[in-house]
């Protein structure tokens, strides 16, 4: 099974492995995602209608309103955060967003993640080492038992245990 390894800068520690959701378009937080489900709602975004919950979100970074971190923070509290984040363009919105999301995050990779990773590929993100390991979908889908890494799903369940789900709620910020 062929794997591709990219190395960069680890931002938030921990290890997660999940399917990738890839977009070359920056993501708006407030007014661009619905944190209860992790769905992209920006009308003209190429991922509109799709959810990043439990996925390795591979994207350029954050745009739009200052409510970016608040939306991803809320998504974490209700259990809809991405499993990990891989991005290319640093700004304050994405920096604060990955910090409060508490999921492994990596940037400054030594290869173009948009060339290497396609939606559906399995990606293992090691935020402590700053590495990602990509297994192409056409490879792992023939594999009857793909490896699962550190079990992000179990952690997510633990996160949401005993908490009530809620929407973004009035007062989230533009």
């Amino acid at each position, binding site marked *: 099974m062929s794997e591709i390894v990219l190395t960069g800068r680890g931002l938030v520690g921990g290890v997660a492995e999940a399917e990738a959701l890839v977009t070359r378009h*920056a993501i708006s937080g407030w007014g661009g995602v619905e944190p209860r489900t992790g769905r992209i709602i920006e009308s003209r975004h190429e991922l509109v209608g799709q959810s990043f919950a439990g996925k390795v979100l591979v994207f350029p970074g954050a745009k*739009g309103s*200052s409510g970016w971190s608040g939306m991803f*923070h809320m998504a974490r*509290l209700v259990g809809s955060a991405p499993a990990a984040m891989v991005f290319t363009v640093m*700004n*304050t919105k994405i920096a604060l967003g990955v910090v409060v999301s508490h999921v492994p995050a990596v940037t400054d990779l030594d290869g173009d993640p948009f060339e290497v990773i396609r939606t559906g590929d399995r990606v293992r993100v090691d935020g402590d080492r700053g590495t990602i390991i990509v297994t192409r979908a056409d490879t792992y889908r023939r594999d009857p038992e793909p490896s699962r890494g550190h079990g992000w799903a179990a952690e997510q369940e633990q996160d949401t245990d005993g908490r009530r789900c809620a929407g973004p709620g009035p007062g989230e*910020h533009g």
Partner: protein
Amino acid sequence: MRLADDERAMLDGEQGEAVAAAMDLLVRYGEVLGAERLVDTDNVCGANLFGSRHSLVCGSPTPDGAFSEHSLDTPRVLPIPPVRAQSYQLIGPMDTKHWQVQGLPQAEHDEIMASEQYNAEHGIHLLNTCTPYQVGNVPLKGEHCAWMESSAVVYVNSVLGARTNVEGRESTGAAMLTGKIPYWGLHLEENRRGSHLVEVSTPVTANRDWGLLGYWIGEQVPEEAIPVVDGVAGAPDLVRLKHFGAAAASSGGVEMYHLPGITVEARTPEEAFAGRAPVERLHYGPAQRREAYEHLNATATDTSVDLVMIGCPHATLGQIRDVVRLLEGRRVHADSALWVFTPRALRHVAEQNGYARALEDAGALLMSDTCPAIGQFLPPGTRVIATDSAKQVHYLPAIMDVQGWFGTLAECVDAAVTGTWRGELR
């Protein structure tokens, strides 16, 4: 990141657990950014008004619990001390006067009022607006600030020359308690130079034109760009630059721009670029203006308008008076609503001036503290909205699943009076 002695002491808990948690958040955040240090700030604008949706997802549904989780990113319920920095509450979820129009239950009203009282007791000034620069918080050139609200950030960076990145709830919450923010991005002189040149060859005069230009630029340039806009004849004003910046920060991530000769940090394009060549030259002419207009109106097909929204970012007194005059001798259509949003302080002035009464007499309503996108409310059954704000028409259809028309103030008031959208781009 290198910490100064006072910052190290805060991190070590010398000023209590909440300040230590705030410093810990700033250190985690600053290290992700790659900031070398923090900078002192005594001007922080954040958003700490919480209702049930925020309290329900916390471990502890108390005001301290909500502030600890949502504003400091700590799951521990910490006693929050009075804020250290001059701190301001931005636009929030509720109009404290017309909350019933929003359809809020009494319990939700009471919870948000308690949250507001909690903020006041901690020394956070209740400006309750997305435009603090209209109502008593006008930072100086070079002043290090920590502001949320993308439309306000782009305004104070560009028009006033204050220095702030687009901060978030957690970083401003931490800055309020510590008086510190990462020294990164737009706090540094060398990051404030122009990057992209936009040459304008079509007249940009009315408010709508400034919204179109801003929206188009935001779509064209990358997030980190600082556009330099050249070729605009005539001088804009606060309202036009408010619309322009808000639009550019909605379609894209523009946090600062230069309008040479108008904004404070560049008299000429050469000065804006500080000797460097533009990364890219863009041209804005009639075709680009039309493209922005079509993008802004892309969600709308039905011409029956249920709500006209004015005041995004929050309306000036001048805009309120303009609406009053456009409504003279007319009345809002029985099947439509016309809501005008302004800062709380300006609503008091508008009431004294008789504008609020005049709007109500014509079937419209002056509201404050919030907006339909932030508060997530519309008149029952609303399917189509119209607004003179590129920012509101960018966000509201996505957030509330409605159609949105964008046009001039006169077209919007006309739609409210007739119930029908008849706007067009000439």
